[in-house]
């Protein structure tokens, strides 16, 4: 099949001024201040797109994907390399360009479509399609300023998608409108694709690419990391992003949560001191403090205390305690909560029929979770120690928050092993 787009080794760098003066005075007087660094945004990218193919460009912020799109639309020009585009190009980068609030929807269709390079006759012949697609038939002669933002976007999108281009470039704009309209847009894009329109989508939402694109390119630091079938590329990308999240030193996060806790702790302490045997159950931390939790840690398999884990990774919760007044029996427990405060899982030594009496004044107790079944999301850890009747000694709600990342795309909170059969 013939190529619709050929990109050969394009490079692009920007001058980033530390303190840019574009005024004469600044240029002359503060000549030294016009220092800048050259940032290479694209460092040699080549790819081809076949006619009728849908390609997704994915990558985190600043990887060069939007710049690539801007070079393809000729908003910017590459420093070196070559871009060949076969056919009429339309870009859905900015919706509603040139809309004038005081003009009617119909007049704005003409203005907006003309910015895409359409001639009057072409717009005339498409006007009905555009109006029908936007579902704004009753409002089309009202000024655009009376439109709701949803109506505004619907009109803008309808113009853009009815431009009849051979190549369609789309940047992060499919997140507009209500779900129904979004579905409609996707259906329209599929229709265009099957009619042989080449489509390039730039987004950091992997879902869009997976749903829609045959092929994906993952960009990082201005280079192509991986190119191929979209699901494969997205798996690799997600894996990379998760690893990056974990590598980003999580210690600062731990400090923060502990600091917060210690603040609350003093609050609770004061209350406890004032009246020893009354328990304020609404506090973040409450109990009689006959035994106290001095510290809880979340350890990975190398024994490192961290607050971000992968689904399926091993996790050890280690509770450090200090006894003020010995009890007959101690019951230790932990629980995982979501951010709404719903308990997802909770357990303690009593439920597991482990009797703990005579223990050292200071010590630790650990619980090992071989494979953490939680799916990606934000969670909260509770730790507690109570006596055999369940009277709280030291009950630590929201001990700390932690995050789970996952390459799996299941929904919900837990990973459940399963097999499909036919």
């Amino acid at each position, binding site marked *: 099949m013939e190529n619709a787009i050929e990109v050969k080794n394009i490079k692009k760098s*920007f*001058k980033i001024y530390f303190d840019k003066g*574009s*005024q*004469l*005075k600044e240029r002359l007087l503060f000549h030294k201040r016009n220092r800048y660094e050259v940032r290479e945004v694209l460092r040699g990218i080549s790819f081809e797109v076949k006619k009728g193919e849908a390609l997704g460009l994915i990558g985190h912020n600043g990887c060069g994907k939007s710049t690539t799109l*801007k070079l393809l*639309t*000729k*908003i*910017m*020009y590459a420093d070196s390399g070559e871009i060949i585009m076969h056919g009429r*190009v339309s*870009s859905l*980068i*900015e919706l509603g*360009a*040139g809309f*004038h609030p*005081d*003009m009617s929807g119909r007049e704005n269709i*003409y*203005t907006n*479509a*003309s*910015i*895409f*390079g*359409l*001639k*009057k006759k072409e*717009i005339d012949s498409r006007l009905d399609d555009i109006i029908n697609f936007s579902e704004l038939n009753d409002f089309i002669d009202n000024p655009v300023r009376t439109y709701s933002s949803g109506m505004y976007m619907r009109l803008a999108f309808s113009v853009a998608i009815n431009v009849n281009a051979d190549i369609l470039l789309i940047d992060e704009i499919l997140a507009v409108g209500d779900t129904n309209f979004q579905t409609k847009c996707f259906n329209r894009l599929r229709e265009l694709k099957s009619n042989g329109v080449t489509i390039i989508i730039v987004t950091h939402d992997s879902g869009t690419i997976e749903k829609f694109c045959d092929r994906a390119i993952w960009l990082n630091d201005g280079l192509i990391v991986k190119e191929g079938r979209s699901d494969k590329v997205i798996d690799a990308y997600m894996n990379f992003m998760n690893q990056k999240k974990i590598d980003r030193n999580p210690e600062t996060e731990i400090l923060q949560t502990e600091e917060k806790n210690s603040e609350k702790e003093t609050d609770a302490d004061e209350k406890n001191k004032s009246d020893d045997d009354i328990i304020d159950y609404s506090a973040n931390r409450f109990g009689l403090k006959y035994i106290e939790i001095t510290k809880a840690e979340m350890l990975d398999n190398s024994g490192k205390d961290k607050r971000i884990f992968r689904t399926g990774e091993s996790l050890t919760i280690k509770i450090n305690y200090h006894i003020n007044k010995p009890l007959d029996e101690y019951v230790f427990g932990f629980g995982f909560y979501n951010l709404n405060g719903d308990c997802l899982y909770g357990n303690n030594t009593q439920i597991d029929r482990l009797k703990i009496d005579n223990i050292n004044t200071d010590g630790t107790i650990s619980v090992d979770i071989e494979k953490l079944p939680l799916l990606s999301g934000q969670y909260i850890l509770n730790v507690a120690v109570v006596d055999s009747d369940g009277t709280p000694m030291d009950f630590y709600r929201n001990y700390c928050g932690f995050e789970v990342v996952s390459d799996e795309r299941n929904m919900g909170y837990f990973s459940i092993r399963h097999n499909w059969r036919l």
Partner: protein
Amino acid sequence: MKTLKEIFDYRQMIFSLVRKDLRGRYKGSFLGFMWTFINPLLQLIVYTVVFSLILKTDTERYYLYLFVALIPWIFFSSSLTGGASSVVAQKDLIKKIYFPRQVIPISYVTSCFVNMLLSFIVVFAVVIFSGNGINPLALLCLPVIMFAEYILALGTALIASSVTVYFRDLEHILGIISMALMYMTPIMYDKAIVPENLLPIFNLNPMTHIIECYRAVLYYRTVPELSGLLSSFVLGSVFLVAGHFLFIRLQRHFAEEL
């Protein structure tokens, strides 16, 4: 050449922008589009009062003498100063969408031009009511003069708008330049009173010839001198060609500089 064809393909966009500008200009005001006519009329009244009651001159029908030169001058000076900031003003569009960037200064100048044409309705009305009379043969030259001024205004707007992107002071500097230029063009006075040694500068000023042509047709009711018409065309074309190539060169980095 390819650029020119592309600009031609985007003629609907030029048309839309001009219409949007003309309609949007007086939107919301009580008199609306009428301002296009009221504005020059009020200016005329001010000049008439000043020059017939306070600053008396010997020139017969001085208000007309001034008016037929002033309206074309306003077209040129607004194309120059407004045109300079036109590209910067549309930066959101330029950063987000591809279209031949020339469309913006072209539409701006065209919109000023249309505004001048509308003002000419008032000019003609004044010419007729003043009893100055019209020479139909001379009047045939008017479109040619207007065209010459249009290409000159477009050329300067292309230069000014593209340079302003890189050098924002220009739009402020141009405000002063345009004022100075107004006094260096024989609008309020006749070229005849200009000292001999300054005459070369006046002849290099492309607007000198254009204003003189307008005045010849509308005030003196004569066919303008061919030499004046020719030199205004030549100077206008020089500006247009220079502006065209400079713009093509400078527009490559618009999206980054804006």
